[in-house]
C-alpha cells in the first residue's frame, strides 16, 4: 500500500510542479523510464515470490537507471546512440514481460 501511495504522490508532485528538465538530460528520460519500470516489476515479482528486499530494490532501481543512461551516453559519444538505446529497450523490455508473466501466474494462477 505504502509504495503505491508513494508512487501516486510522486506523480502528483511531478504533474503539479512541472519541473524544467535541462535539455542535455532530456534524451535520457525515456530510457530511464524503461529502466525504472524494469525495477518496479522486478520488485513486485519479488514481493509475490516472498523474497523482497528493500535495499536490493533501491539499488536495482538506481543502478538500472544509471547504467541505462550511461550506455546511451556512451552510444551518443560513439555515434550509435540510437542503436544502443534500442538494445537497452529490448533487453529491459524482455525482462519486464517475463516478470509481468510471472506476476500474472502468481495473481491469477494462469
Amino acid at each position, binding site marked *: 500500500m505504502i*509504495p503505491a501511495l508513494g508512487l501516486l504522490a*510522486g506523480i502528483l508532485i*511531478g504533474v503539479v510542479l512541472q*519541473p524544467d*528538465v535541462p535539455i542535455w538530460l532530456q534524451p535520457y528520460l525515456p530510457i530511464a*523510464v524503461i529502466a525504472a519500470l524494469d525495477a518496479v516489476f522486478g520488485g513486485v515479482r*519479488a514481493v509475490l515470490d516472498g523474497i523482497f*528486499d528493500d535495499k*536490493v530494490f533501491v539499488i536495482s532501481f538506481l543502478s538500472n537507471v544509471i547504467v541505462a543512461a550511461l550506455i546511451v551516453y556512451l552510444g551518443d559519444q560513439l555515434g550509435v546512440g540510437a542503436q544502443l538505446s534500442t538494445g537497452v529497450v529490448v533487453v529491459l523490455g524482455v525482462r519486464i514481460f517475463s516478470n509481468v508473466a510471472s506476476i500474472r501466474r502468481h495473481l491469477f494462477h494462469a
Partner: protein
Amino acid sequence: MTAPAPTPARRPDASMTLLTEMLERPLDPGYAAASARRAAAGGPRSTPVGSTLVAVTAILLGLLFAVSATTVRRGEASAGTVRKDLISQIESRRAVVDERSAAIRDRQTEITRLESNALGATENGLRQELQALAAATGNVAVEGPGLLVTLNDKPTDDATPTAGDDQGKVLSRDLFIVVNSLWQSGAEAIAINGQRLTVRSPIRFAGEAILVNFRPLSPPYVISAIGDPAALPAAFAETVGGAYLKSLTDNFGIVTSVDGADHISLPGATRVTVDKAVVQGGTK
C-alpha cells in the same frame, strides 16, 4: 567393449545462452541472494514492503514518470509549433518578396517612361540603347508564343507524403537541365512559376524545396519559354533535356508535359543591379 559414458545432451539452444539467461531468469538474482542470506541468519525471507526506503524510491519513481511524460509531450508540441511558425514566417517573407518584386517592376516601368520624356530628341540613341538593353537583360515584361514545360512530383497515394522520400520529387537539377536545353533550342525568354530568369538567377534547392531567384517555389513547376513556335518544340525534343524529361517520367514517376502555347506572358526581372562590378575603362 563398453559403450562410452553418455555425455549429457547438449541443449539445443546452447549457443544462445545470453537469450535463455535473459528469458529464464528475468528476476534480479540479488533478491534471491539477499533472501537466502537472511534465511541463513535465521531472519525472515522477505523484508517488509512498507519501509521508508521503499516509500522514498516509490516517490522518486512517480516523479520520474510524471516528469518524463510532461517533458516529452511538451517537446513534441514545441517542435510542431516551431515548424509551423517557421513555415508561416517563410510565407509572409515570400509575400514581401512578391510585393517588392511587383513594386520594382512598376518603378522600372515608370523610370522607362520618365526617361523617354526627359531624354530629348537629341538623345534618341541612348533611349534606344536603354530599351534594347532592358529587353536583353529580361528587365521588361514580354509576351509571345512558345513552349510550356511542366514538371510535377510523383503523385502519392496517401495524403501525407513521408519526408525523405525524394524519389519522385522534382529537383532543382531537373529544372536547370531542362532550362539549359530550352536556351539551347533557341528560347528568347524563360520564367519558372513567374520568376523570370536573368544572368543572375540561380535555380537551387534547400532540402526538398526549389528556390528560383532566392524564392521558394511550390510544385507543379511550369517553365514558360518564349520562342519560335514552329522550331522550338522540335529543337527541344532533340536536346538532352527532351530525353531527360522522358527518363524522369519512366524512372521516377515524375509527371511531365510539353505543350506549345500561342500566348505566354512573362514578368520582368527584379534583380537588375550590380554592387561590385563596374564597366571596365569607365565609371559606373
